[in-house]
């Protein structure tokens, strides 16, 4: 559809020996709740993982922890070989797309993307890259509109185009299919697929396993604070 050369390549060392994501017996307590109770996981670089689980199971929390936004109460983890506590190195390799998009309501679509790009010390023609990303998600006509005035689905598309544009080695995506129309859902599959094709590791928290499967075939289920292979839990 678009010229793949326009998309910035995933910025990470070509040859990776260690797993992209690794958690060892991670416990996490928030307030008076223990959300994670001994989570273990390994994901190879280039893996695509779907994170399933009931409402309130802790999927979002786990993603925030992987992005170094929360510290494990016990246990440890590594992202691209860096300890989770070394937040500075982890942040160099990861992008988290939150449920609500995490956009600035008073910046326009264009400005929101350009800001994200510049914060990643993007060199090159930012304006052109941004225009390409907006076109890709069908927001070119709203490029100059403030995020405050976007519809729910348009906000999701904007957040998605940001993830695609940044193309970090590890991309964590929280409920990408919610609020989108059918075309939007197909777009998510396409763009996330491109990220993986570029060598990126993908973790997708979603309630639509059939849709997520296309880009993140390995399914894990979070239940009771523990992470299990989805197949296993179905049998259990």
């Amino acid at each position, binding site marked *: 559809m678009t010229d793949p050369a326009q998309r910035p390549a995933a910025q990470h060392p070509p040859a990776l020996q260690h797993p992209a994501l690794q958690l060892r017996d991670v416990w996490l307590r928030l307030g008076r709740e223990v959300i994670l109770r001994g989570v273990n996981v390994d994901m190879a670089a280039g893996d695509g993982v779907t994170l399933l689980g009931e409402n309130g199971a802790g999927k979002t929390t786990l993603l925030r922890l992987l992005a170094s936004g929360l510290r494990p109460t016990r246990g440890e983890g590594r992202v691209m070989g860096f300890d989770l506590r070394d937040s*500075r190195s982890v942040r160099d390799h990861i992008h988290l797309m*939150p449920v609500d998009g995490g956009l600035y309501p008073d910046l326009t679509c264009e400005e929101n993307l350009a800001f994200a790009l510049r914060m*990643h010390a993007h060199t090159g023609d930012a304006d052109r890259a941004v225009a390409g990303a907006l076109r890709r998600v069908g927001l070119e006509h709203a490029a100059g509109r403030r995020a405050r005035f976007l519809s729910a689905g348009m906000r999701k598309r904007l957040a998605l185009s940001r993830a695609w544009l940044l193309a970090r080695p590890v991309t964590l995506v929280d409920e990408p299919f919610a609020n989108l129309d059918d075309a939007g859902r197909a777009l998510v599959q396409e763009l996330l697929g491109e990220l993986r094709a570029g060598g990126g590791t993908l973790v997708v928290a979603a309630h639509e396993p059939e849709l997520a499967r296309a880009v993140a075939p390995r399914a894990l289920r979070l239940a009771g604070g523990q992470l299990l292979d989805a197949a296993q839990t179905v049998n259990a």
Partner: protein
Amino acid sequence: MNTAWQVALKDLRVAGRTRDTLLSTGFFAGLVLLVLGLALGGNGGKTLEQAAGTASGAVWTALALAAAVGAGRAFAQEQEAGALEQLTLYPGPHGALYLGKLLGVLGPLLLVAAFTLPAGLLLFGAAGTGRALPWPALALTTLLGVVGFAAGTTFYSSITVSLRAREALLPALAFPILVPVVIATVRATAALVAGGWSPEVTTWLTFLAAFDVGTIILATLLFPYALEG
């Protein structure tokens, strides 16, 4: 440095667009001047020294409170949008975020100060009496003072943002730390208005500059701990 710069640019852009920081800061500064002006009564029968003292006291109280209110918005803005966590997840040192926010806060604040100082001096009868005032020196004092306020309040704003009632909490926490700046600026302004440049003024301004630099360095170093998840 790129990070700091990008954050500042973004904040200035938002500030220019919504103007709400400017409005609330200006409102607050105006309110303080007005109430103090009314409360401290007419300025009849005051010597120049007394007028200079009252005027600079009122101006700097107003600016300090306005800084607290303005800086409060710096992080509240991010928080409202749910964008604060996103901001902390960008690459680069967290200290740079502080510097960026500081620059962003400084913009509107300097604008407000540029109005408040002459207005306050006029209102309290310390200007407009036919004498020439040392405006460049006053501007320098204002700059140093406002930077000091912004540095302190921006730092505390990052702490109070995730707490409830941050609007009132922020000034309360930050103000005592700002007291040295208030003292120094009031002294320097009063001396400048009453008698022009003098060695006393030099001392106060040196102190202010040192305090500003010290606060900024300390805040930049501690900021990552204040933010951390």
